[in-house]
């Protein structure tokens, strides 16, 4: 195949858009923690740009997208970007340079690791987070990316995941839950009012996420044509429906909060992700509404009934959103939207829904089990948690020797 300049521009721009989502996550999460942990929370995301950005070009891309081994893992033929050059790959995104596809995928790996950090903020040791992140990208993210997008067993089975409902969101959300169980609650949770230090930062972060998500979803069309436009519109529509719905729910409860509204937007975006290029723009409305309603009540149950300290609700937003979105493909997908997709419950049969269920269950089970083992390994070797004093003074000082706001003299 020859290179299409239009497709290449779109994939490179999309890669840059998705890159910006990781600082977006840093701001989104950073604003929600207490002041003493603002920098450490932002650092957890930003450090992924350094760590995962390196590991991906060294070997992550190869074991995710290299030649298939038993449907489980990619080979070493792309190690150190060997055989990944300016010519297109014969298999992936065949109209853009292979390097462009590789860097687009790098941004997904980076943000997926960053998403998990919301569950472990305010108490995890920074060095342990780095070690865990490297292990997790290697042994959880890469295999799952291979299963779904690299020609692995779930791809062969026909499981559809347009832009990462399983690879990114279920993967991150379920792994977050496993880490919460290993790490335990923050001191003072529940009971102490852990007030967000800066909600405007949260709004800024959510805005960057929404903006970047156009690259995430519409970029996943891998061409600059009609499918990209369709995914762009479903993405925006689901985000709008979910933001508005969450706002209404919080209003029915007491008052319409902006923290709730932006959370709804992110839940809607996570939920539409696997379906973005398979469903019609109007189908994005029920998907967005369902995202807000289900994520809201799951969050309520986890926080108040079960007492799990998934600090920034990674499971409730990304895990639940990813599951809902994967299933919504089996309900709303249509071959009229994407000939590489499938028909579904509303357009044909329930066969695709069954495949989606298998995708959800297998990625969820693997992510939970593997993360638990990796987290436990880090815990018994270098320890996951900071000491009591370090937690009390805050991770900004104890882990990074910095503070977010200057001293008395401004």
């Amino acid at each position, binding site marked *: 195949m020859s290179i299409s300049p239009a497709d290449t521009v779109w994939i490179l721009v999309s890669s840059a858009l998705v890159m910006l989502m990781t600082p977006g996550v840093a701001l989104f999460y950073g604003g929600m923690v207490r002041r003493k942990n603002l920098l450490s929370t932002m650092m957890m995301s930003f450090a992924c740009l350094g760590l995962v950005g390196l590991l991906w070009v060294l070997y992550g891309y190869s074991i995710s997208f290299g030649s298939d081994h038993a449907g489980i893992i990619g080979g070493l033929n792309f190690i150190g970007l060997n055989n990944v050059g300016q010519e297109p790959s014969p298999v992936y995104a065949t109209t853009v340079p292979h390097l462009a596809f590789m860097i687009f995928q790098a941004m997904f790996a980076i943000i997926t690791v960053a998403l998990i950090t919301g569950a472990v903020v305010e108490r995890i040791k920074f060095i342990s987070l780095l070690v865990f992140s490297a292990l997790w990208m290697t042994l959880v993210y890469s295999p799952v990316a291979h299963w779904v997008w690299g020609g692995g067993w779930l791809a062969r089975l026909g499981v559809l995941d347009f832009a990462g409902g399983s690879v990114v969101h279920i993967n991150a959300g379920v792994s977050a839950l496993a880490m919460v169980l290993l790490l335990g609650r923050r001191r003072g949770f529940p009971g102490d009012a*852990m*007030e*967000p230090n800066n909600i405007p930062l949260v709004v800024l972060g959510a805005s960057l996420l929404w903006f970047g998500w156009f690259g995430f979803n519409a970029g996943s069309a891998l061409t600059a044509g009609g499918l990209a436009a369709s995914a762009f519109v479903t993405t925006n529509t689901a985000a709008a429906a979910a933001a508005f719905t969450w706002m209404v729910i919080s209003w029915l409860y007491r008052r319409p*909060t902006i923290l709730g509204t932006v959370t709804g937007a992110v839940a809607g975006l996570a939920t539409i992700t696997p379906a973005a290029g398979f469903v019609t723009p109007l189908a994005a409305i029920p998907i967005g509404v369902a995202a807000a309603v289900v994520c809201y009540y799951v*969050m309520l149950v986890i926080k108040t009934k079960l007492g799990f300290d998934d600090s920034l609700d990674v499971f409730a937003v990304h895990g639940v959103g990813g599951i809902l979105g994967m299933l919504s493909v089996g309900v709303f997908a249509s071959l009229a939207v994407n000939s590489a997709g499938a028909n579904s419950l509303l357009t044909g049969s329930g066969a695709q829904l069954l495949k989606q269920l298998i995708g959800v269950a297998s990625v969820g089970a693997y992510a939970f089990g593997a993360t638990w083992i990796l987290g436990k390994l880090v815990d018994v070797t270098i320890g996951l948690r900071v000491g009591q004093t370090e937690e009390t003074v805050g991770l900004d000082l104890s882990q990074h020797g910095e503070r977010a706001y200057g001293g008395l003299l401004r």
Partner: protein
Amino acid sequence: MKKVEAIIREERLDAVKKALEEKSYFGMTVSEVSGRGKQKGIPLQWRVGEYRVDLLPKLKIELVVLDEDVSTAIDAIVSNARTGETGDGKIFVLPVETVVRVRTGDRNENAI
């Protein structure tokens, strides 16, 4: 000499300041404080559910006056800080041993 410490609602500052100035008490120190009293707290919402914040933002005005001026100052503050609702604040009066004006080194009555 006495120090008058008044905790008041933020929105009453301008009126209290003006009233004190009319009685020629110009100098004061104002700081943002948090506190609680009979007003209890206010509910705030998280992404889901709510939590209670029981320390509410108030302003603290501090001024030092001669003993015979204390009741005039208190009257000016009370009549302008009061809304009649809980949360209007409190006034404390404390004895002051020494006052020094930094620029001149003047002491006590000459320094107020």
